[in-house]
């Protein structure tokens, strides 16, 4: 276990450092088009080859890592916190609160999201920088991604409310707020962790799919999502294995994070 955690640490450190050293490591910026060498395989100048329009894939992976590795966990954290607050608090308070929160959650789940996201795009000006666009997208994902987890949390917190240890803690005179944060929240951790870890890859992919609505990272800026989109369609592993680097990276990073942060959870369970 300890070895694995060390390995996870090393992987994350390498990935992070490389993404921040992109300016030095990559042969050129992510937008530079080598038009005479499009769709090339790996070479000494282009370690991971070039994409359809001749951009260095290694540079794009590094810069994309920066975007996705910062923003996806941030959005996941936001949605997890919202789920914890809305679902957890409502479940803990019970009664009217729980019913209200579940009604809001149901409403959220039943809203025509596609339509709302299209409206959101319509409200945004067309001339936004790619960075703003991707920030707004992850913010939206964070603000919208909490519903399913909130449901689970509401039920879990509801059952915790009548748990012996909560009664015991109340009998010890611990005030309601602390009771929630100290005694209820830690027990929601498995659900929260799950929500967090599931959200990261989901958000990374959703960001790519939101490109359909004109949201998400805009060209020429890369993100893991937009890089993963390259795998749509006809790529086969045998032909062009280097195209799978973004996917492998995503899997590696998510697993590493999980190894690194799940220790606490495991012992407590």
């Amino acid at each position, binding site marked *: 276990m300890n070895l694995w955690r060390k390995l996870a640490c090393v992987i994350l450190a390498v990935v992070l450092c490389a993404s921040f050293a992109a300016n030095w490591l990559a042969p050129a910026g992510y937008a530079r088009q080598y038009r005479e060498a499009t769709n090339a395989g790996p070479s000494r100048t282009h370690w991971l080859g070039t994409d359809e329009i001749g951009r260095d894939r290694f540079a794009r992976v590094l810069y994309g890592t920066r975007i996705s590795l910062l923003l996806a966990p941030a959005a996941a954290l936001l949605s997890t916190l919202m789920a914890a607050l809305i679902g957890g608090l409502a479940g803990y308070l019970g009664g009217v609160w729980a019913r209200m929160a579940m009604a809001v959650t149901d409403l959220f789940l039943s809203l025509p999201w596609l339509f709302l996201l299209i409206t959101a795009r319509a409200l945004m000006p067309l001339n936004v920088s790619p960075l703003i666009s991707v920030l707004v997208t992850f913010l939206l994902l964070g603000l919208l991604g909490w519903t399913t987890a909130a449901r689970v949390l509401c039920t879990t917190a509801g059952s915790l409310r009548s748990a012996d*240890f909560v009664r015991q*803690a109340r*009998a*010890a*005179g611990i005030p309601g707020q602390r009771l929630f944060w*100290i005694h209820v929240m830690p027990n929601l951790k498995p659900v929260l962790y799950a929500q967090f870890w599931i959200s990261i890859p989901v958000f990374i992919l959703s960001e790519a799919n939101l490109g359909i609505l004109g949201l998400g990272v805009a060209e020429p800026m890369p993100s893991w999502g937009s890089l993963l989109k390259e795998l749509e369609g006809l790529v086969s592993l045998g032909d062009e294995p280097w195209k799978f680097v973004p996917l492998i990276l995503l899997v590696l990073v998510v697993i590493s994070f999980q190894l690194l942060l799940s220790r606490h959870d495991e012992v407590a369970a």
Partner: protein
Amino acid sequence: MSLTPSQDQALLSARISVRYAGKQPVLRDVEIEIRRGEVLGLVGQSGSGKSTLAMAILGLLDSKRAQAEGTIAFQNANLLQLSERELRALRGRAVSLVLQSPLASLNPSLKIRTQLKEAWRAHASGTAADCAIAIRASLASVSLPADDEFQRKYPSQMSVGQAQRVLIAMAIMHRPALLIADEATSALDVITQSEILALFRELNRSTGMAILYISHDLASVAGICDRIAILHQGAIVECGTASQIFSHPKHEYTQRLMAALPRILLTNKEPEPKTEAAAAR
């Protein structure tokens, strides 16, 4: 210590009815008095309303569904009329609770140090060092190791007996005037049970803390209680010193309880201290 308890020594006196909306009353005009420093046993079968009474005293009845009428006089106040804020100030400081199953009553995802710290923080302010001292003291008073290694444990890493002692340590941290032990030993094996009973007795002696000892098990109650109240179908049917109850049960239900006690208990080692205690009184 409580050889001649008298009315003015009453720590808590309650006269209370509780009913849940649309149902038969759980407690019907129950009169009960707990004197300073005494151990009062409250015996009744499950569903007789014992826990409801405990919760009523702590102000932890579900306020939306349960209706409580009457008075619970405790330290110059009627507990039933106190605000939640005032009740909270009493809970854990003046009245504390120990519940039945120790492992369920400790938060599985918190180290016991955290839980003790929280209990301390609820009613005390001070430096981390003050807190550490208080925690160590309370652990020591329940004969648990007070070292860091122990404090870092999670409930799942302890035995049931240890967990129960942690709970008791939490409950006595602020030297409450009244400790309510709701079936506090029922889930324990016989040896652990007797150890915990001895601990209660010891704490009662050393701190003068009154204990409301709630149990369905007349035998275990007999071991530590000064007085015993028998609760049957939401009403107190009989109340008296342990020796009275054991030697001259008046109410038919008490007699049935007595009859149900295994013979072996009445003759064997276990009841011995009880009779001795009764005689001493």
